């Protein structure tokens, strides 16, 4: 054993990398949050945050709605796919992954082109003698964009969790007198909890921090936290306030991740990691 412990030095480049490019950048976020543009210590950035309270609340509200809608539509889909034949499953998985492999900018942009005032949808409506609809620039459009862009991230982990359920448990539930609704609520749903938690995380975090979706589908009328941060860094160069907003968002997300993970069974992670390595079952 002593001999092998020596080998740990090969991790050194990675440790250096972590310190330089993960820890140091985060320290810079903290440093900028508590200093002014001259570099002097100040609490002004933190004290200015209540100004952005509304934006925080809107972002949280919209991403919660988007996450919930993804779950509502995604859970039945994952369940139905898991009950298909092996060949169909393969086809469905490709269909589900293809949008994920397509760049997010492209997907959002094409959605905007459809829903825009002079877009495809309205030209169809006009052709059918129906009144055109105004969608881009509303809250609904942004939420729809979030659902559309991150939907596969909800379905995949739930699908994996459902396929891992021991089928005998479902049969046992039926034998013991559960009808199919009871089996669903009492057996399948609780046993796929880890997948649900992962799905919620994977939709909520990108939704709450997006700026492209709100830029395109919000038509410039909406500001989410992501937009605010993006503007502080790319347009105004007010790094200090931008850093403070990012710091708060990061802390909020880390707290909610920690809370979410209490609801998930712990060994799901290692099982998932094994899958990632392609080792399979």
């Amino acid at each position: 054993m002593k001999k092998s412990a020596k080998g740990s030095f090969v991790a050194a480049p990675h440790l250096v990398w972590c310190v330089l490019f993960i820890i140091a950048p985060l320290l810079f976020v903290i440093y900028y949050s508590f200093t002014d543009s001259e570099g002097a210590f100040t609490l002004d950035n933190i004290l200015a945050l209540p100004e952005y309270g509304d934006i925080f609340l809107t972002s949280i509200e919209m991403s919660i709605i988007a996450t919930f809608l993804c779950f509502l539509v995604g859970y039945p889909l994952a369940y139905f796919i898991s009950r298909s034949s092996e060949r169909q499953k393969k086809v469905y998985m490709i269909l589900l992954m293809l949008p994920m492999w397509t760049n997010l900018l492209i997907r959002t942009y094409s959605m905007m082109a459809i829903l825009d005032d002079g877009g495809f949808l309205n030209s169809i409506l006009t052709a059918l003698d129906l009144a055109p609809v105004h969608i881009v620039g509303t809250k609904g459009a942004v939420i729809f964009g979030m659902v559309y862009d991150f939907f596969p991230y909800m379905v995949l982990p739930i699908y994996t969790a459902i396929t891992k359920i021991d089928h005998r448990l479902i049969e046992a539930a039926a034998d013991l007198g559960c009808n199919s609704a009871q089996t669903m609520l009492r057996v399948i749903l609780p046993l796929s909890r880890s997948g649900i938690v992962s799905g919620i995380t994977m939709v909520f975090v990108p939704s709450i921090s997006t700026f492209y979706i709100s830029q395109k589908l919000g038509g410039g009328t909406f500001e989410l936290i992501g937009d605010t941060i993006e503007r502080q860094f790319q347009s105004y160069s007010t790094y200090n306030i931008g850093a403070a907003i990012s710091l708060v968002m990061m802390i909020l997300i880390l707290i909610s991740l920690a809370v979410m993970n209490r609801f998930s069974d712990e060994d799901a992670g290692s099982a998932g990691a094994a899958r990632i390595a392609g080792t399979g079952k």
Partner: protein
Amino acid sequence: MKYISKIYIAIVFLILYIPILVLMLFSFNKTSNTGAFDGFSLYWYRELFKSPETFTALKNTLILAVSASLIATVIGTAASVGVVKMKNRFLRSLVNSVTNIPMMNPEIVTGISMMLLFVAIGTFVGAQDKLSFWTLLISHVTFCLPYVILSILPRVKAMDKSIPEAAMDLGCTPIQSFFKVELPMIMPGIVTGMIMAFTLSLDDFVISYFTNGNDFQTLPLLIYSMTKKEVKPDIYALSTLMIIAITILLILSNFSGSKDEVDRKRHERMIAKAQKKQNAAQIGNTGKENG
């Protein structure tokens, strides 16, 4: 019940695919109209191939993805092998938690935090261009590392420790034993990690947006600047080509000799790529599996 599930699946996929299909349709539009189809033409594809910008961006994207995934794979492989050999439990789980930070954090936070670092260092050394290809490369390696380690570490842990020991008993030096025995055993994990890193780097927009210099534009950044201007179907043409390339890759890797063991694994790798964040989120938070 069977019909209900079929209809449900069909409707959801239809909605998921309408924007992509509409986009493909309008890439063949004769005019720059994106609301009504005026007739078939390849005009926008010709326009696209005329612009040198597109090819430069494509070249840049590939250079960046190849170098970032290679560097991340080398550092990540060494890290996975080294971390397992660490004796201090606390240190080990600390390293794992820190490694996973870029995976847990929203991309925009990773992006701005690195931008702050690069700008500060750039100002300190008095560099003219504070952001460049190198800052972009560093940021890509950083967000690829956790995924690479996540796919190699389980392989290293599952490896029977007595095999490299046997190799050394039989006269291998530790270095020979690593390259001839350990490396081939963890190779599938390394390949998966490298593919994952490559695709992540290809696709990244948010982090690149904050860490790129003016002289090095990647494809996602080009698309972003194109969508900032007036709506023109040349983006549709570019997107259509990208989607077709992805589709061919996905189908090839899923259906070529589907009974083959290798392909089963490749299929799982595809799924794994999609599930990367999910697993990461849990491993990062429980911190036990890796520790």
